[in-house]
Protein backbone atom coordinates (compact mmCIF):
# COMPACT_ATOMS: atom_id res chain seq x y z
CA UNK A 1 0.00 0.00 0.00
CA UNK A 2 1.38 3.33 -0.96
CA UNK A 3 1.80 5.88 1.80
CA UNK A 4 1.11 8.62 -0.71
CA UNK A 5 -2.22 7.10 -1.70
CA UNK A 6 -3.16 6.58 1.91
CA UNK A 7 -2.28 9.99 3.27
CA UNK A 8 -2.24 12.49 0.46
CA UNK A 9 -5.20 13.75 -1.51
CA UNK A 10 -4.88 15.15 -4.98
CA UNK A 11 -2.83 18.12 -3.77
CA UNK A 12 -2.07 18.11 -0.06
CA UNK A 13 -1.78 15.64 2.80
CA UNK A 14 -5.12 15.22 4.54
CA UNK A 15 -5.80 16.50 8.06
CA UNK A 16 -5.04 13.19 9.73
CA UNK A 17 -1.68 12.98 8.00
CA UNK A 18 -0.80 16.57 8.92
CA UNK A 19 -1.99 16.09 12.52
CA UNK A 20 -0.04 12.88 12.97
CA UNK A 21 3.02 14.46 11.38
CA UNK A 22 2.85 17.43 13.75
CA UNK A 23 2.30 15.11 16.73
CA UNK A 24 5.14 12.86 15.60
CA UNK A 25 2.86 9.84 15.48
CA UNK A 26 3.04 9.11 11.73
CA UNK A 27 4.55 5.83 10.67
CA UNK A 28 7.76 5.92 8.61
CA UNK A 29 5.99 5.68 5.25
CA UNK A 30 3.56 8.48 6.03
CA UNK A 31 6.30 10.67 7.45
CA UNK A 32 8.39 10.27 4.30
CA UNK A 33 5.49 11.08 2.02
CA UNK A 34 4.55 14.19 4.01
CA UNK A 35 8.19 15.32 4.09
CA UNK A 36 8.43 14.90 0.34
CA UNK A 37 5.30 16.99 -0.09
CA UNK A 38 6.54 19.69 2.29
CA UNK A 39 9.75 20.01 0.29
CA UNK A 40 7.75 21.36 -2.61
CA UNK A 41 4.65 22.93 -1.01
CA UNK A 42 5.10 26.27 0.73
CA UNK A 43 1.51 26.36 2.02
CA UNK A 44 1.76 23.00 3.78
CA UNK A 45 5.20 23.84 5.12
CA UNK A 46 3.80 27.01 6.67
CA UNK A 47 0.84 25.11 8.02
CA UNK A 48 3.06 22.52 9.67
CA UNK A 49 5.33 25.24 11.10
CA UNK A 50 2.33 27.12 12.50
CA UNK A 51 0.79 24.01 14.02
CA UNK A 52 4.10 23.07 15.59
CA UNK A 53 4.40 26.57 17.05
CA UNK A 54 0.85 26.31 18.45
CA UNK A 55 1.70 22.92 19.93
CA UNK A 56 4.89 24.31 21.46
CA UNK A 57 3.15 27.36 22.88
CA UNK A 58 0.30 25.23 24.24
CA UNK A 59 2.79 22.96 25.96
CA UNK A 60 4.40 26.00 27.58
CA UNK A 61 1.15 27.41 29.00
CA UNK A 62 1.24 27.97 32.72
CA UNK A 63 -1.36 27.57 35.40
CA UNK A 64 -3.51 30.55 36.31
CA UNK A 65 -4.12 31.66 39.86
CA UNK A 66 -7.81 31.84 40.74
CA UNK A 67 -9.06 35.20 42.06
CA UNK A 68 -8.73 35.47 45.86
CA UNK A 69 -12.50 35.76 46.31
CA UNK A 70 -12.99 32.11 45.29
CA UNK A 71 -11.50 30.73 48.49
CA UNK A 72 -13.63 33.16 50.52
CA UNK A 73 -16.74 31.82 48.87
CA UNK A 74 -15.71 28.22 49.40
CA UNK A 75 -14.94 28.88 53.06
CA UNK A 76 -18.30 30.54 53.59
CA UNK A 77 -20.13 27.76 51.82
CA UNK A 78 -18.36 25.14 53.93
CA UNK A 79 -19.27 26.98 57.12
CA UNK A 80 -22.86 27.49 56.06
CA UNK A 81 -23.18 23.90 54.94
CA UNK A 82 -21.84 22.68 58.25
CA UNK A 83 -24.10 24.98 60.24
CA UNK A 84 -27.12 23.99 58.19
CA UNK A 85 -26.33 20.37 58.92
CA UNK A 86 -25.88 21.05 62.61
CA UNK A 87 -29.16 22.96 62.64
CA UNK A 88 -30.83 20.04 60.95
CA UNK A 89 -29.56 17.78 63.72
CA UNK A 90 -30.78 20.22 66.33
CA UNK A 91 -34.14 20.38 64.65
CA UNK A 92 -34.33 16.60 64.69
CA UNK A 93 -33.44 16.68 68.36
CA UNK A 94 -35.99 19.42 68.90
CA UNK A 95 -38.63 17.33 67.21
CA UNK A 96 -37.82 14.43 69.51
CA UNK A 97 -37.85 16.72 72.49
CA UNK A 98 -41.17 18.26 71.50
CA UNK A 99 -42.70 14.84 71.61
CA UNK A 100 -41.86 15.00 75.27
CA UNK A 101 -43.22 18.55 75.51
CA UNK A 102 -39.81 20.24 75.62
CA UNK A 103 -39.25 21.44 72.04
CA UNK A 104 -37.90 24.96 72.53
CA UNK A 105 -35.44 25.18 69.61
CA UNK A 106 -36.46 27.83 67.13
CA UNK A 107 -37.37 26.28 63.82
CA UNK A 108 -34.81 27.11 61.13
CA UNK A 109 -37.66 27.34 58.69
CA UNK A 110 -35.71 27.84 55.48
CA UNK A 111 -33.42 24.90 56.04
CA UNK A 112 -36.29 22.55 55.49
CA UNK A 113 -37.62 24.37 52.45
CA UNK A 114 -34.71 24.28 50.06
CA UNK A 115 -35.45 23.61 46.43
CA UNK A 116 -34.95 19.94 45.63
CA UNK A 117 -31.74 20.66 43.71
CA UNK A 118 -30.34 22.56 46.65
CA UNK A 119 -31.21 20.01 49.25
CA UNK A 120 -29.73 17.31 47.04
CA UNK A 121 -26.43 19.12 47.30
CA UNK A 122 -26.54 19.49 51.03
CA UNK A 123 -25.12 16.61 52.97
CA UNK A 124 -28.01 14.78 54.56
CA UNK A 125 -26.28 12.55 57.06
CA UNK A 126 -24.44 13.55 60.21
CA UNK A 127 -21.64 15.96 59.47
CA UNK A 128 -18.50 13.82 59.56
CA UNK A 129 -16.10 16.57 60.55
CA UNK A 130 -17.95 17.85 63.58
CA UNK A 131 -18.06 16.26 66.98
CA UNK A 132 -21.31 15.76 68.84
CA UNK A 133 -20.26 18.00 71.71
CA UNK A 134 -19.11 20.90 69.53
CA UNK A 135 -22.37 21.20 67.66
CA UNK A 136 -24.38 20.98 70.82
CA UNK A 137 -22.41 23.84 72.35
CA UNK A 138 -23.02 26.05 69.36
CA UNK A 139 -26.68 25.31 69.13
CA UNK A 140 -28.04 28.55 70.57
CA UNK A 141 -26.65 30.76 67.80
CA UNK A 142 -27.61 28.48 65.01
CA UNK A 143 -31.19 29.32 64.19
CA UNK A 144 -30.47 32.45 62.21
CA UNK A 145 -27.29 30.98 60.81
CA UNK A 146 -29.26 28.03 59.54
CA UNK A 147 -31.72 30.33 57.83
CA UNK A 148 -28.87 32.24 56.22
CA UNK A 149 -27.22 28.97 55.31
CA UNK A 150 -30.31 27.72 53.59
CA UNK A 151 -30.74 30.95 51.72
CA UNK A 152 -27.16 31.22 50.56
CA UNK A 153 -26.80 27.54 49.80
CA UNK A 154 -29.80 27.80 47.56
CA UNK A 155 -27.90 30.46 45.68
CA UNK A 156 -24.53 28.77 45.75
CA UNK A 157 -25.43 25.26 44.76
CA UNK A 158 -29.11 24.97 44.14
CA UNK A 159 -30.55 27.72 42.04
CA UNK A 160 -30.11 26.87 38.45
CA UNK A 161 -32.71 28.96 36.74
CA UNK A 162 -31.75 28.94 33.09
CA UNK A 163 -33.50 31.60 31.08
CA UNK A 164 -34.59 30.27 27.77
CA UNK A 165 -34.40 26.64 28.83
CA UNK A 166 -37.95 26.20 27.65
CA UNK A 167 -36.79 27.08 24.19
CA UNK A 168 -35.81 23.57 23.16
CA UNK A 169 -38.96 22.11 24.59
CA UNK A 170 -41.24 24.87 23.43
CA UNK A 171 -42.68 23.21 20.33
CA UNK A 172 -43.63 20.04 22.17
CA UNK A 173 -44.82 21.98 25.18
CA UNK A 174 -46.95 24.12 22.98
CA UNK A 175 -48.21 21.10 21.13
CA UNK A 176 -49.08 19.44 24.41
CA UNK A 177 -50.82 22.40 25.92
CA UNK A 178 -52.07 23.74 22.63
CA UNK A 179 -51.25 27.26 23.66
CA UNK A 180 -48.27 29.58 23.31
CA UNK A 181 -49.76 31.63 26.09
CA UNK A 182 -49.50 28.71 28.49
CA UNK A 183 -45.80 28.34 27.69
CA UNK A 184 -45.22 32.06 28.21
CA UNK A 185 -47.07 31.91 31.52
CA UNK A 186 -44.98 28.92 32.59
CA UNK A 187 -41.77 30.81 31.85
CA UNK A 188 -43.05 33.87 33.62
CA UNK A 189 -44.07 31.88 36.63
CA UNK A 190 -40.71 30.13 36.80
CA UNK A 191 -38.90 33.42 36.51
CA UNK A 192 -41.03 34.85 39.30
CA UNK A 193 -40.09 31.86 41.45
CA UNK A 194 -36.39 32.31 40.70
CA UNK A 195 -36.71 36.02 41.34
CA UNK A 196 -38.26 35.33 44.74
CA UNK A 197 -35.40 33.02 45.65
CA UNK A 198 -32.77 35.51 44.55
CA UNK A 199 -34.48 38.24 46.50
CA UNK A 200 -34.60 36.03 49.56
CA UNK A 201 -30.90 35.27 49.21
CA UNK A 202 -30.14 38.96 48.77
CA UNK A 203 -32.22 39.88 51.80
CA UNK A 204 -30.40 37.35 53.97
CA UNK A 205 -27.00 38.55 52.84
CA UNK A 206 -27.99 42.20 53.22
CA UNK A 207 -29.07 41.49 56.76
CA UNK A 208 -25.70 39.99 57.62
CA UNK A 209 -23.79 42.71 55.76
CA UNK A 210 -25.79 45.59 57.28
CA UNK A 211 -25.52 44.26 60.81
CA UNK A 212 -21.74 44.16 60.71
CA UNK A 213 -20.89 46.87 58.23
CA UNK A 214 -19.36 48.94 61.07
CA UNK A 215 -16.34 46.65 60.77
CA UNK A 216 -15.52 48.26 57.42
CA UNK A 217 -13.71 51.54 57.01
CA UNK A 218 -16.08 54.30 55.83
CA UNK A 219 -14.50 54.64 52.38
CA UNK A 220 -14.82 50.95 51.58
CA UNK A 221 -18.37 50.92 52.93
CA UNK A 222 -19.24 53.94 50.76
CA UNK A 223 -17.75 52.27 47.66
CA UNK A 224 -19.72 49.11 48.34
CA UNK A 225 -22.93 51.10 48.81
CA UNK A 226 -22.29 52.94 45.56
CA UNK A 227 -21.71 49.67 43.69
CA UNK A 228 -24.84 48.17 45.21
CA UNK A 229 -26.84 51.21 44.09
CA UNK A 230 -25.58 50.76 40.53
CA UNK A 231 -26.57 47.08 40.59
CA UNK A 232 -29.98 47.92 42.09
CA UNK A 233 -30.56 50.33 39.25
CA UNK A 234 -29.61 47.64 36.73
CA UNK A 235 -31.96 45.19 38.46
CA UNK A 236 -34.82 47.70 38.25
CA UNK A 237 -34.19 48.26 34.57
CA UNK A 238 -33.93 44.59 33.67
CA UNK A 239 -36.99 43.83 35.78
CA UNK A 240 -38.93 46.44 33.84
CA UNK A 241 -37.70 44.89 30.60
CA UNK A 242 -38.89 41.45 31.73
CA UNK A 243 -42.26 42.84 32.75
CA UNK A 244 -42.79 44.40 29.33
CA UNK A 245 -41.41 41.35 27.45
CA UNK A 246 -41.82 38.30 29.71
CA UNK A 247 -40.57 35.80 27.14
CA UNK A 248 -37.52 37.77 26.03
CA UNK A 249 -34.48 35.60 26.77
CA UNK A 250 -31.99 38.51 26.84
CA UNK A 251 -34.21 40.36 29.32
CA UNK A 252 -34.50 37.27 31.55
CA UNK A 253 -30.78 36.63 31.26
CA UNK A 254 -30.00 40.20 32.17
CA UNK A 255 -32.22 40.11 35.26
CA UNK A 256 -30.70 36.86 36.49
CA UNK A 257 -27.16 38.10 35.81
CA UNK A 258 -27.85 41.28 37.77
CA UNK A 259 -29.20 39.26 40.70
CA UNK A 260 -26.08 37.11 40.58
CA UNK A 261 -23.85 40.20 40.50
CA UNK A 262 -25.57 41.62 43.55
CA UNK A 263 -25.28 38.33 45.42
CA UNK A 264 -21.59 38.14 44.47
CA UNK A 265 -20.96 41.64 45.78
CA UNK A 266 -22.83 40.93 49.01
CA UNK A 267 -20.90 37.69 49.45
CA UNK A 268 -17.66 39.61 48.99
CA UNK A 269 -18.85 42.18 51.52
CA UNK A 270 -19.59 39.51 54.11
CA UNK A 271 -16.21 37.89 53.41
CA UNK A 272 -14.49 41.24 53.81
CA UNK A 273 -16.23 41.86 57.12
CA UNK A 274 -15.14 38.41 58.32
CA UNK A 275 -11.53 39.05 57.36
CA UNK A 276 -11.56 42.45 59.08
CA UNK A 277 -12.96 40.89 62.22
CA UNK A 278 -10.33 38.18 62.16
CA UNK A 279 -7.70 40.89 61.72
CA UNK A 280 -6.54 39.21 58.53
CA UNK A 281 -5.29 42.20 56.58
CA UNK A 282 -3.87 40.11 53.75
CA UNK A 283 -7.17 38.33 53.27
CA UNK A 284 -9.08 41.62 53.37
CA UNK A 285 -6.67 43.17 50.87
CA UNK A 286 -7.19 40.23 48.51
CA UNK A 287 -10.95 40.72 48.63
CA UNK A 288 -10.73 44.49 48.20
CA UNK A 289 -8.46 43.94 45.22
CA UNK A 290 -11.06 41.56 43.77
CA UNK A 291 -13.78 44.17 44.35
CA UNK A 292 -11.69 46.78 42.57
CA UNK A 293 -11.16 44.48 39.61
CA UNK A 294 -14.91 43.93 39.44
CA UNK A 295 -15.56 47.64 39.61
CA UNK A 296 -13.23 48.35 36.70
Amino acid at each position, binding site marked *: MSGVNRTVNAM*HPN*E*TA*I*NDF*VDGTSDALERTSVEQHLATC*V*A*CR*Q*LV*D*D*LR*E*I*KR*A*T*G*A*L*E*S*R*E*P*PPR*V*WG*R*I*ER*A*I*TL*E*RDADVARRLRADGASASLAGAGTTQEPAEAGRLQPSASDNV*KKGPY*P*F*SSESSWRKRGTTLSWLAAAAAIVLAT*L*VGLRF*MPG*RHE*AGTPSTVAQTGSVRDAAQAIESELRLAEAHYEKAIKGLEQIANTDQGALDPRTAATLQKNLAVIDQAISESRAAVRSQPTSEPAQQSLVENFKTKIGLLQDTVALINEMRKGNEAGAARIVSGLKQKGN
Partner: protein
Amino acid sequence: MAAAGDLIARCQAGDVEAFEALYRQHAARLYTLACRMAGSPEDGEDLLQEIFLQAHRKLGSFKGDSAIGTWLYRLALNHCLDYVRSRQAKMNRLTETLDADTSFEPTARRDTPIARLDLERAIERLPEGCREAFVLHDVEGFDHKEVGKLLGIAEGTSKSQVFKARMKLRSFLRGST
Protein backbone atom coordinates in the same frame (compact mmCIF):
# COMPACT_ATOMS: atom_id res chain seq x y z
CA MET B 1 4.56 12.37 51.96
CA ALA B 2 3.99 12.26 55.70
CA ALA B 3 3.20 15.99 55.64
CA ALA B 4 0.63 15.41 52.89
CA GLY B 5 -0.91 12.59 54.90
CA ASP B 6 -1.08 14.80 57.94
CA LEU B 7 -2.74 17.57 55.94
CA ILE B 8 -5.39 15.17 54.63
CA ALA B 9 -6.00 13.81 58.12
CA ARG B 10 -6.52 17.34 59.42
CA CYS B 11 -8.88 18.10 56.53
CA GLN B 12 -10.82 14.94 57.29
CA ALA B 13 -11.04 16.01 60.93
CA GLY B 14 -12.76 19.22 59.83
CA ASP B 15 -9.82 21.63 60.01
CA VAL B 16 -10.76 24.42 57.59
CA GLU B 17 -7.26 25.93 57.69
CA ALA B 18 -5.87 22.61 56.53
CA PHE B 19 -8.46 22.53 53.76
CA GLU B 20 -7.40 26.03 52.75
CA ALA B 21 -3.79 24.81 52.55
CA LEU B 22 -4.95 21.96 50.34
CA TYR B 23 -6.84 24.47 48.20
CA ARG B 24 -3.76 26.71 47.89
CA GLN B 25 -1.68 23.75 46.72
CA HIS B 26 -4.04 22.58 44.00
CA ALA B 27 -6.36 25.45 43.07
CA ALA B 28 -4.24 26.93 40.28
CA ARG B 29 -4.01 23.70 38.30
CA LEU B 30 -7.69 22.90 38.70
CA TYR B 31 -8.79 26.47 38.02
CA THR B 32 -6.75 26.46 34.82
CA LEU B 33 -8.35 23.20 33.75
CA ALA B 34 -11.82 24.52 34.58
CA CYS B 35 -11.31 27.81 32.73
CA ARG B 36 -10.05 26.10 29.62
CA MET B 37 -12.72 23.42 29.61
CA ALA B 38 -15.51 25.92 30.27
CA GLY B 39 -14.08 28.55 27.96
CA SER B 40 -14.33 31.46 30.38
CA PRO B 41 -12.70 32.56 33.65
CA GLU B 42 -16.14 33.32 35.14
CA ASP B 43 -17.40 29.80 34.56
CA GLY B 44 -14.00 28.52 35.67
CA GLU B 45 -14.47 30.29 39.01
CA ASP B 46 -17.89 28.73 39.54
CA LEU B 47 -16.56 25.31 38.60
CA LEU B 48 -13.58 25.63 40.94
CA GLN B 49 -15.89 26.54 43.80
CA GLU B 50 -18.13 23.55 43.11
CA ILE B 51 -15.11 21.25 42.71
CA PHE B 52 -13.68 22.15 46.11
CA LEU B 53 -17.07 22.01 47.82
CA GLN B 54 -17.54 18.55 46.40
CA ALA B 55 -14.00 17.62 47.45
CA HIS B 56 -14.77 18.82 50.96
CA ARG B 57 -17.87 16.66 51.11
CA LYS B 58 -16.09 13.61 49.73
CA LEU B 59 -12.75 13.89 51.53
CA GLY B 60 -14.01 11.58 54.24
CA SER B 61 -14.02 8.76 51.70
CA PHE B 62 -10.47 9.47 50.47
CA LYS B 63 -8.43 6.43 51.43
CA GLY B 64 -5.07 7.48 50.04
CA ASP B 65 -5.03 4.86 47.27
CA SER B 66 -3.78 7.59 44.94
CA ALA B 67 -2.07 10.91 45.54
CA ILE B 68 -4.46 13.61 46.73
CA GLY B 69 -3.55 15.68 43.65
CA THR B 70 -4.61 12.83 41.37
CA TRP B 71 -7.82 12.35 43.34
CA LEU B 72 -8.65 16.05 43.10
CA TYR B 73 -7.76 16.16 39.42
CA ARG B 74 -10.11 13.24 38.65
CA LEU B 75 -12.86 14.85 40.64
CA ALA B 76 -12.29 18.17 38.86
CA LEU B 77 -12.14 16.59 35.43
CA ASN B 78 -15.37 14.68 36.02
CA HIS B 79 -17.01 17.86 37.22
CA CYS B 80 -15.81 19.76 34.15
CA LEU B 81 -16.99 16.96 31.86
CA ASP B 82 -20.43 16.94 33.50
CA TYR B 83 -20.60 20.68 32.98
CA VAL B 84 -19.53 20.38 29.35
CA ARG B 85 -22.00 17.57 28.68
CA SER B 86 -24.93 19.40 30.20
CA ARG B 87 -24.07 22.54 28.27
CA GLN B 88 -23.57 20.64 25.06
CA ALA B 89 -26.83 18.83 25.52
CA LYS B 90 -28.46 22.22 25.85
CA MET B 91 -26.69 23.85 22.98
CA ASN B 92 -26.71 20.71 20.83
CA ARG B 93 -23.77 21.81 18.82
CA LEU B 94 -21.04 19.32 19.56
CA THR B 95 -20.15 18.84 15.95
CA GLU B 96 -19.52 21.68 13.62
CA THR B 97 -18.31 21.32 10.10
CA LEU B 98 -14.91 22.55 9.10
CA ASP B 99 -15.40 26.00 7.72
CA ALA B 100 -13.45 28.31 5.51
CA ASP B 101 -10.90 29.48 8.02
CA THR B 102 -9.65 25.96 8.61
CA SER B 103 -8.45 25.55 5.04
CA PHE B 104 -4.76 25.91 4.59
CA GLU B 105 -4.21 28.59 2.02
CA PRO B 106 -0.75 30.19 1.85
CA THR B 107 -0.73 33.05 4.32
CA ALA B 108 1.60 35.63 5.75
CA ARG B 109 4.07 33.84 7.91
CA ARG B 110 4.03 34.31 11.65
CA ASP B 111 7.63 34.98 12.65
CA THR B 112 7.10 35.90 16.28
CA PRO B 113 6.47 33.37 19.02
CA ILE B 114 2.86 33.13 20.16
CA ALA B 115 2.16 35.24 23.23
CA ARG B 116 0.74 33.27 26.14
CA LEU B 117 -2.17 35.66 26.66
CA ASP B 118 -3.09 35.59 22.97
CA LEU B 119 -3.14 31.81 23.07
CA GLU B 120 -5.26 31.67 26.25
CA ARG B 121 -7.79 34.04 24.72
CA ALA B 122 -7.82 32.12 21.47
CA ILE B 123 -8.47 28.85 23.33
CA GLU B 124 -11.44 30.50 25.07
CA ARG B 125 -12.83 31.45 21.67
CA LEU B 126 -12.72 27.91 20.31
CA PRO B 127 -16.12 26.40 19.54
CA GLU B 128 -17.52 23.95 22.08
CA GLY B 129 -16.66 20.38 21.21
CA CYS B 130 -13.32 21.08 19.62
CA ARG B 131 -12.15 23.17 22.58
CA GLU B 132 -12.64 20.34 25.07
CA ALA B 133 -10.92 17.81 22.80
CA PHE B 134 -8.04 20.22 22.24
CA VAL B 135 -7.62 20.99 25.95
CA LEU B 136 -7.71 17.32 26.91
CA HIS B 137 -5.28 16.30 24.16
CA ASP B 138 -2.87 19.17 23.65
CA VAL B 139 -2.90 20.71 27.13
CA GLU B 140 -3.73 17.88 29.50
CA GLY B 141 -1.87 15.24 27.51
CA PHE B 142 -4.54 12.56 27.05
CA ASP B 143 -4.25 10.49 23.88
CA HIS B 144 -7.09 10.44 21.36
CA LYS B 145 -8.43 7.14 22.64
CA GLU B 146 -8.69 8.55 26.16
CA VAL B 147 -10.18 11.81 24.91
CA GLY B 148 -12.77 9.81 22.99
CA LYS B 149 -13.73 7.90 26.15
CA LEU B 150 -13.87 11.02 28.30
CA LEU B 151 -16.00 12.98 25.85
CA GLY B 152 -18.04 10.05 24.60
CA ILE B 153 -16.90 10.45 21.02
CA ALA B 154 -15.00 8.22 18.60
CA GLU B 155 -11.21 8.35 18.52
CA GLY B 156 -11.36 9.62 14.94
CA THR B 157 -13.73 12.39 15.99
CA SER B 158 -11.27 13.42 18.68
CA LYS B 159 -8.51 13.67 16.06
CA SER B 160 -10.74 15.66 13.79
CA GLN B 161 -11.82 18.01 16.60
CA VAL B 162 -8.23 18.60 17.70
CA PHE B 163 -7.22 19.37 14.12
CA LYS B 164 -10.14 21.72 13.79
CA ALA B 165 -9.16 23.46 17.03
CA ARG B 166 -5.57 23.87 15.91
CA MET B 167 -6.70 25.33 12.60
CA LYS B 168 -9.04 27.72 14.38
CA LEU B 169 -6.25 28.78 16.72
CA ARG B 170 -4.00 29.36 13.75
CA SER B 171 -6.66 31.53 12.21
CA PHE B 172 -7.31 33.47 15.45
CA LEU B 173 -3.62 33.97 16.16
CA ARG B 174 -2.88 35.07 12.63
CA GLY B 175 -5.55 37.70 13.10
CA SER B 176 -4.04 38.89 16.37
CA THR B 177 -0.62 39.83 14.92
